[in-house]
């Protein structure tokens, strides 16, 4: 009646291997996301993503949100960020809440975000005008966001010299 894909959560690599197998065997992958790099669109452990493999030969477009394989600090990770530039054999990719642009090769891309639930609200990426307006606006605001984040970091570093502990002291990541 049901198929279970849950695995031991302490073994990130096993969970990661499952993503690729599920995409290959089921043709889609549904999960929640961890982290704040795609805020405000996706919130840590609150929203639901639906990933499907790209149809054969199709490339991503600016605005698409691919799921790709990345090696971060020696660990295999599966990352969901947005395409901000399309190039020959690779993409410029950046999280909605990030200012660093990543270089991601075609071969790293496992699939694309086709739908998501923000809470209980369902969004189809390819057809939602509100969603298209959101990402176009958000990308257009990047220069201002870049300036804001750098200014905030500078002010934070300056204040920490005088013992300031940050806006949310003691609060860990996810």
């Amino acid at each position, binding site marked *: *009646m049901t198929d279970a894909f849950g695995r031991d959560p302490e073994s990130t690599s096993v969970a990661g291997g499952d993503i690729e197998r599920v995409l290959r065997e*089921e043709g889609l992958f549904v999960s929640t996301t961890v982290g704040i790099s795609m805020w405000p669109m996706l919130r840590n452990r609150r929203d*639901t993503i639906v990933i499907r493999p790209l149809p054969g030969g199709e490339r991503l477009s600016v605005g698409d949100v691919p799921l790709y394989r990345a090696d971060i600090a020696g660990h295999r990770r599966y990352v969901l960020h947005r395409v901000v530039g399309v190039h020959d054999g690779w993409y410029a990719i950046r999280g909605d809440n990030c200012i660093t642009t990543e270089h991601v090769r075609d071969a790293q891309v496992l699939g694309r975000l086709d739908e998501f639930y923000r809470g209980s609200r369902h969004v189809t990426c390819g057809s939602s005008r509100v969603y298209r307006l959101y990402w176009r606006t958000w990308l257009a605001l990047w220069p201002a966001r870049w300036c804001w984040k750098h200014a905030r970091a500078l002010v934070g570093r300056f204040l920490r010299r005088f013992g300031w502990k940050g806006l949310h002291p003691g609060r860990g990541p996810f």
Partner: protein
Amino acid sequence: MKVKQGFVMRDVADQTVIIATGEASKTFQGMIRVNETGKIVWSGLADGQTVDQIVDKVTAEFDVERAKAAADVETFIGKMRENGFLDD
């Protein structure tokens, strides 16, 4: 008996899946595909219905014998319990 906080059911194209969000996603990372019977059972438990009420619903929806419906419902509940989706 009720569904643990954080487990949600989502309709995706022609499939229905259950995934974990929130705190539940720290211990369960995957997706469970469910069929029509599973959808009714899940929705029933999420709404606080008893097993008997859920069996009644399955019997009415699929026009099957109550014994068969009860067996299917118990099987699905057993799988949910195995995967840690339920608070007893």
